């Protein structure tokens, strides 16, 4: 049951679900949730390959930095969401039509 293939399939499912969440939701916070799922799918792939194929820990380092970058991305993204809400009084993605103001 535990093999490289099963991990890859889980990661694939996670990635597709994240993609669908990203595409289908109109709420900016929900889109960020989708991005988190996608990043996790990538990190899972790295660790799975690191255990089953390369047998060294570079994959772990990669997923460590993926987590770090994901945290930074979430912080900045949510800050933008909050600022956007203060200006537009909504977090509907279709309202984000202007680059200024």
């Amino acid at each position, binding site marked *: 049951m535990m093999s490289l293939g099963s991990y890859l399939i889980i990661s694939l499912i996670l990635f597709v679900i994240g993609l669908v969440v990203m595409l289908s939701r109109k709420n900016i916070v929900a889109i960020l949730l989708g991005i988190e799922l996608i990043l996790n799918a990538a990190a899972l792939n790295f660790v799975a390959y690191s255990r089953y194929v390369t047998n060294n820990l570079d994959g772990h380092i990669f997923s*460590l930095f993926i*987590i*770090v970058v994901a*945290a*930074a991305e*979430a*912080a900045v993204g*949510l*800050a933008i969401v*909050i600022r956007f809400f*203060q200006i537009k009084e909504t977090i509907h993605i279709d309202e984000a039509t202007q680059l200024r103001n």
Partner: protein
Amino acid sequence: MIPASFDGLMPVVIFMGLAVLLFFGGHYASVLLAPKKPSHLKSTPYECGEQPVGSAWSMFNVRFYVVGLIFIIFDVESVLMFPVASIFRELNDMGQGGYALIIFLSFISVLIEGIAYCWRKGDLDWVKSFQSSLKKETK
């Protein structure tokens, strides 16, 4: 000796399972023992005896978010420092203490810049106007 596949994961999972079991067991006991006389008045949210006005799910001040923001950055930095800290002594014994110290300190110095910036810009003050007015009074 024990094969390594039974390493520390099992107690962790068992403890989590026990928490869930205790939770549902307690619920079951309270379903069996507790009285059940629901009424509308009983299940209104508590607002000092008055009729509750509106929903509590309203907007909050941004400063909660700013605190969370500073927290997550520091959290991630401490996560990255943990493996380096745990081999610091080993490196020192290998005679590479200076090298490790330089890496470690340059990492921390960036962290200090972050907190210094937030301090300077007043993100660490909870109530800005209140504290600035206090300063004016003392002057």
